[in-house]
């Protein structure tokens, strides 16, 4: 009984906030910032130049692209982001002013379905700018070019060079609860064929309801066994 009270009370306190709190929701991260937050590399982008990143997996939730400015001061950094994939093209602009280290968001039209795209960032200004770059373990699989010249590549499964930070988020903050079906679909990616939403939903129910019920039942059963044993001994 006490065990049930503790579990129910704990879930009653923690679960609503966990499930319904609106949070900044990541869609995909073609190139996330480095895992060492104090050590971003710089990705220089000359005036009028275009940097491109291939193998960008985007999906229907990729509504807002984010880049990170690293140009010192608050000088102008007019940028244009273009995403192109099979039967898909979307373009957006970054405002002309952005402070050093600031993350800038570009609204894009998400594709109807998941697809492989190429993302290009064009410096619309004449002065060079810098984007946050990643050249360490967090460097993603994408090949990087600047004005068509290879700046970072992936060969034989190993990456080299520096990529620029590019992540995709949902446009509005949303909750874990509202994205549960999407999350279970994502959980089935790069897993065996049996790990699909149809099996993950029952597993989720088993974990949240079945596992606690079994643990409490086992404890109660043990207590009952002890009582029977004591009565028999008496």
């Amino acid at each position, binding site marked *: *009984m*006490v*065990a*049930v*009270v*503790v*579990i129910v009370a*704990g879930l009653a306190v*923690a679960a609503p906030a*966990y499930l319904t709190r609106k*949070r900044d929701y*990541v869609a*995909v*991260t073609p*190139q*996330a*910032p*480095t*895992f060492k937050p104090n050590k971003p590399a710089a990705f220089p982008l000359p005036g009028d130049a275009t940097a491109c990143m291939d*193998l960008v*997996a985007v*999906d229907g939730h990729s509504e807002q692209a984010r880049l990170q400015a690293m140009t010192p001061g608050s000088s102008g950094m007019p940028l244009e982001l273009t995403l192109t994939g099979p039967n898909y093209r979307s373009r957006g602009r970054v405002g002309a002013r952005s402070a050093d280290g600031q993350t800038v968001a570009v609204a894009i039209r998400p594709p109807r379905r998941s697809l*492989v795209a190429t993302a290009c960032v064009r410096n619309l200004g004449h002065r060079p700018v810098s984007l946050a770059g990643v050249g360490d*373990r*967090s*460097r*993603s*699989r994408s090949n990087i070019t600047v004005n068509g010249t290879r700046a970072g590549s*992936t060969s*034989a*499964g*190993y*990456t080299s060079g520096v990529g620029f930070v590019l992540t995709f988020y949902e446009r509005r903050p949303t909750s*874990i609860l509202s994205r549960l079906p999407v*999350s279970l679909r*994502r*959980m089935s*990616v*790069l*897993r*065996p064929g049996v*790990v699909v939403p149809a099996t993950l939903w029952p*597993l*989720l129910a*088993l*974990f949240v309801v*079945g*596992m*606690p019920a*079994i*643990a*409490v039942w*086992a*404890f109660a*059963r*043990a*207590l009952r*066994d*002890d009582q029977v*044993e004591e009565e028999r001994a008496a």
Partner: protein
Amino acid sequence: MLAAVIAAVAWICVLPPIQGPDEDSHFAYVQKIGAAHEIPWRPFSAPAHWGAPYSTELAYALTYGDVTAAWANPHARPGRTPADVAIWKSYNAKLPSGAATDGGFTPAMRYPPLYYLYAALPYEATSGLGIFDRVFAVRLANIPALLAVVVFTWLLVGELFGRRRWLQALATTAVALEPQLLNMTAVVNPDVFLAGIWAAALYVMVVLVKHGLTRGRIAWTVALAIASCLSQPRGVAIVIPAAAAISLAFWRHRPPASRRVRRALIAGAAAVSVIGLAVLAYYAMLGQVSVEHVRHLGSYLWQFYLPNLGFMNSSSYGARDVFVDRLFGGFAMLEVKFSRGVYTALTVIGAVVLVSALVGVIRRRADVRRRWDVVVVGLLAFAGYMLVLHAVAFRSLLVSLDPVITGRYMLPLLPLYGVIVALAVAWLPRRWGLVAAGALVGGVVFLQIAALGLLFARFYA
């Protein structure tokens, strides 16, 4: 057991492939055995020319599955869309023959091969499937080891507390749903395998000391000790309690007749202990014994368990980090953590449980005096294991400032944690004991749900 299996499968599904601590390195070892039929064990040094660490197949999976970029990086998400699968598959289809066997040397290949030989079985069984399916299969193979931890904790507590099922159920639930144990069950890594061996060994040792010597019990103790040594370098520590258990079983059940022999044996045991400690200290100091190193070692050991005394060089990593923060948190590649407040609450609860267990020991002092040999085996299992960990950690501190000891290293001692939890409530008046046990069971279950919730938010929110 069923609750543990459900939790284990859930963790295995939620934790994306190859996002556990050093899972890449351990899987590369398994693949070398499973695909190349070669045991790459190099205990003392890396080969001179070891080429690329991973096989081409594994390197492609890590890179084109967007696995590596997400390691310990809370901003990153590993491959999670059908487009990610398409990218990985398109490159995977271009792999040359022999792409699964051409891996070089990874740090895990310094470890002995028993776990990897075991893990190679599910690898072989699924060798016709994709690499991510094989990772999943090898992870699933950790479940029998998890169940060994669960079953032998139940048996150990039964052996120590008699047929008090509620204490067995409490201790077993606390161990079976311990979050780090489940996290590591979801990872290709020898830690849970080692924990299973230790759980079985602790039970057999207690039976040996309590019920006397039989060939079977001695053989099991020796076999499990060898298995531990062949699973992980840390597993060598089992030699200490195993040797003590066999010696104490002889002492109690076939005591030497002469007083002189008894004294000689005690002196011999003391000499072996002193020599063993000296060897460990020598190893810890990289063979450079000096006043400075001895002082540094003393300061490190003191500060691991107790507060800094002001004149000591500051050490920021201690018992709380290992026994609380990293044992009850630090999932995936350590980046998934509870808030400080949760760890503080767990520290307070842990302290209350520990004090209550000590009271329990004092109240059962007659039992302790009668069965001092069982207590000695338990204490030596803990102290011996910690000594080995400290020796390795101090050695590492001298070279790289890495404290090395982390929460998952404590998994072999989990059955003793179960015993402490049982001790903490066993002495309470029945009514209060049941209330405390119920609260602990509820708390453990809630913590388990919260831990997986945290992991879920890390990768899917």
